[in-house]
């Protein structure tokens, strides 16, 4: 196709651009909507080495920018990923096996997301990878930070096992700096090293009494619980801090016996760095939150902690928005506590750095090139939290993937490319008229575990989507940048596109030039179909695709006596098993699935008959699920026109039917059996070429 609109901009869907690893959420969402779950997971796995983990704990920046969010609420992208990654099909998926061995050996220090991602990608590139982990279990903060009620251990383990299946060896209990060094690793034949050691020290408050027994450190506490060390709390616990880690600490405290948990932080409620949903869940479980206090000193009673004295915090940020807390030292408040857990931030343990000649930055991280992730020592790369400061799992994965690319170039003796990653600019706004004309569909919600059940265990709080809900949710995606492209060389400015578009996206200039904003367009397909010179291509289903599918379906069913082509709207309320059932119950029906019957042209229907179909039917989704119900009438008239065309060439018009899909399932049994009966009473299609 000649596109007359060469675009130099990157036209990524907002969800993709917002993702640190540029996950093409749109792609797997669409596959879920098509009930092609296994392929959805394959698509996810091609980009994300920790799909099941990310499906649960990713902070999903994609949802913040999702175009659907401008209409009602964003597509539940994270939950969809989890659905795709968790289904029973995951066990059927065969791993892409690594290329033949390159002969190079790489050591990865740290089994957090950055290390695992680097190992995964390096293994796929054919390198031999060993992961060295200090702790007795692998996973980094995913294993010893994030509590298991948010990320069940078996889920993380399964993701790690998939990486091990690529031939990656994970050795736990090996401390870089003590057990191994750059020198020893080089001596053992490792040609490159990746350091993804994260941030595992808790930041200190540096106030009086901080070393009293009864004062715990946030990440140490979480790590101890995660490693199964005997940690039990009783009575009252104060957690100092207002971020997500503090929330995890507070909620974990409740699960290991604390009776009252109070979170105290500097920030006002609306300034708290923790995600609102996390604060909400913590509150539901009984965590109380007190704002605008900063610790002054820990209180002591016969050598043990008895409480903590706070000064009131008047302001946390300066005019530039930088962290710069101001206190009123005169206003002091004492609070009793049996245990205080300080969760105000993490720092890197870089005791290994000095020995190995690595440079530590002023901020307390390792020094490395921000793009290539090379450290000043040849062959040593570093990434993840230890470079970026506290970030997220996906950002760490992005760093690991980036490091893998750099290391691969390094090992091949080539210079490392310095291409900057795509950065999410501000997402464009939809015009108000388009928002108004876009049909709203509520975001699928599922209830979490009841609170009592949550607190008595570490079992996962968030339940998964059912297939039903997942497909419904996936169908909410508005197909950003998958829509209409005008071939300006062909366009004759007939204005049909402008007239049929249900959202009024196309515009025309004085000289007749048509512009269709690829972000605003929702790929409904109406304009492309009606354009009399076929100058519009819809990326979601490029021209002629439906006709080709029809041809293919018929060609592969030549053994059948009678052939009925059924066009089904993917927006219908049916499950994958209904499709299977259809094939079993009505083997003569060849289903062709589309995102809306408005995409079926008369020529597609004629094509089916030309290829020998005995009958064709169109099954449209129930009106309450149709994003463009206003097209329904036009589709009926178009079908009626096709019927007269059939009659004109000498075929019985009753061979073409249009049905509404039932509230549940693919097609009403009555209508389909009636059609089959009708066909049986007619001569077989005179157009069938019998081979």
């Amino acid at each position, binding site marked *: 196709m000649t596109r007359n609109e060469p675009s130099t901009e990157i036209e990524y869907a907002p969800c993709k651009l917002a993702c640190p690893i540029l996950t093409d959420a749109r792609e797997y969402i669409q596959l879920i909507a098509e009930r092609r779950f296994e392929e959805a997971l394959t698509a996810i796995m091609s980009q994300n080495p920790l799909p099941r983990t990310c499906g649960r704990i990713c902070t999903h920046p994609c949802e913040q920018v999702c175009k659907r969010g401008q209409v009602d609420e964003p597509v539940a992208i994270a939950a969809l990923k989890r659905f795709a990654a968790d289904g029973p099909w995951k066990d059927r998926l065969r791993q892409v096996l690594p290329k033949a061995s390159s002969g190079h050996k790489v050591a990865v220090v740290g089994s957090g997301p950055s290390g695992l991602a680097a190992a995964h990608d390096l293994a796929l590139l054919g390198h031999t990878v060993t992961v060295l982990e200090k702790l007795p279990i692998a996973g980094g903060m995913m294993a010893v930070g994030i509590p298991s009620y948010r990320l069940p251990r078996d889920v993380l383990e399964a993701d790690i096992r998939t990486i091990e299946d690529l031939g990656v060896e994970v050795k736990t209990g090996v401390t870089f700096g003590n057990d191994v060094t750059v020198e020893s690793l080089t001596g053992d034949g490792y040609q490159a090293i990746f350091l993804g050691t994260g941030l595992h020290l808790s930041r200190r408050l540096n106030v009086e009494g901080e070393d009293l027994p009864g004062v715990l450190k946030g990440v140490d506490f979480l790590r101890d619980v995660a490693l199964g060390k005997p940690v039990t709390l009783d009575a009252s616990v104060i957690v100092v801090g207002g971020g997500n880690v503090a929330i995890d600490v507070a909620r974990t405290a409740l699960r290991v016996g604390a009776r009252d948990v109070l979170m105290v932080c500097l920030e006002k409620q609306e300034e708290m760095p923790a995600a609102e949903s996390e604060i909400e869940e913590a509150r539901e479980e009984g965590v109380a939150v007190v704002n605008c206090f900063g610790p002054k000193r820990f209180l002591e009673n016969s050598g043990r902690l008895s409480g903590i004295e706070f000064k009131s915090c008047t302001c946390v940020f300066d005019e530039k928005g930088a962290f710069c807390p101001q206190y009123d030292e005169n206003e002091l408040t004492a609070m009793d506590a049996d245990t205080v857990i300080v969760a105000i931030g993490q720092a890197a343990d870089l005791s290994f750095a000095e020995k190995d000649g690595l440079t530590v930055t002023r901020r307390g991280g390792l020094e490395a090139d921000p793009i290539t992730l090379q450290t000043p020592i040849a062959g040593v790369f570093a990434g993840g939290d230890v470079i970026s400061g506290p970030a997220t799992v996906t950002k760490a994965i992005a760093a690991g993937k980036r490091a893998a690319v750099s290391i691969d170039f390094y090992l091949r003796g080539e210079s490392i490319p310095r291409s900057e990653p795509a950065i999410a600019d501000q997402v464009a706004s939809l015009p108000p008229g388009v928002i108004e004309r876009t049909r709203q569909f509520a975001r699928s919600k599922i209830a979490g575990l009841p609170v009592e059940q949550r607190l008595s265990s570490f079992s996962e709080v968030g339940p998964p989507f059912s297939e039903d809900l997942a497909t419904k949710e996936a169908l909410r995606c508005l197909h950003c940048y998958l829509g209409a492209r005008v071939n300006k060389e062909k366009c004759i400015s007939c204005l049909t596109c402008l007239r049929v578009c249900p959202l009024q996206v196309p515009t025309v200039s004085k000289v007749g030039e048509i512009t269709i904003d690829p972000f605003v367009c929702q790929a409904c397909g109406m304009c492309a179909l009606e354009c*009399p010179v076929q100058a519009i291509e819809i990326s979601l289903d490029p021209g002629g695709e439906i006709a080709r599918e029809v041809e293919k379906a018929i060609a592969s069913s030549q053994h059948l006596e009678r052939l009925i082509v059924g066009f089904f709207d993917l927006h219908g309320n049916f499950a994958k098993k209904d499709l299977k059932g259809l094939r079993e119950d009505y083997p003569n029906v060849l289903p062709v699935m589309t995102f809306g019957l408005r995409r079926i042209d008369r020529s597609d229907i004629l094509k089916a008959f030309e290829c020998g179909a005995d009958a064709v039917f169109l099954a449209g989704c129930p009106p309450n699920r149709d994003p463009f119900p206003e097209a329904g009438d036009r589709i009926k008239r178009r079908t009626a026109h096709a019927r007269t065309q059939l009659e004109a060439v000498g075929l019985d018009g009753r061979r073409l039917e249009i049905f509404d899909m039932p509230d549940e399932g693919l097609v009403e049994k009555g209508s389909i059996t009636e059609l089959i009966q009708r066909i049986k009473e007619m001569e077989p299609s005179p157009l069938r070429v019998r081979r």
Partner: protein
Amino acid sequence: MITLEQKQFAQIKEMASHYDRLLVLGCQTCSAMSFAGGEREVKELASMIRMERKISGKPGDILEDAIARQCDPELVDLIGDKVRGCDAVLSLACGAGVQMLAERFPDKMILPGCNTTFLGVTEELGVWSERCAGCGDCILDKTAGLCPIARCSKQLLNGPCGGSVNGKCEISKDVDCVWQLIIDRLARLNRLEMLEEIFPVKDWSPAGHGGPRKMIIEDLKS
């Protein structure tokens, strides 16, 4: 634009039946805009002819193509090879296009797949109406911009006639009396006095009554 409509399939089938190898040729300008013979209709019609032939056991190949316009020789010449390789061309252009094809390909039978209907406007998607009769001497300045030649059933120049009832023409209650519209519009423009002017007898020779028309721009022609 010139509007067109596709002929009934029965008629197309009949005229095409004498030729085995048939090129269905679309015209991507007025005909496409009339949804009579653009690329989309070419695809459909070709499919229908193929089916009809298969059903009735007639042999032959149906080729498909479309060009920007069939009323210009240079464009028509671009598909010369294809035309020469078939027995006949079913042109989905207006009569002008059909004749241009015939002129450029003297040895080929050219069949009209469409009827040229009128010079008109698009009222809305799928609805067109006649506005101009191509009379060669436009009088719209005198009739408030509404053409009685194209839109009055009797082509009256001094209407309305006695058949005008409640603003509708006597031939059908769906047809507006253009003279009523002219009067209404002149009233709105405060120029009703213009109606008092009696039209002289119209010279119809520029309308083609003086034989086939031809237009020459001296400084343009070679």
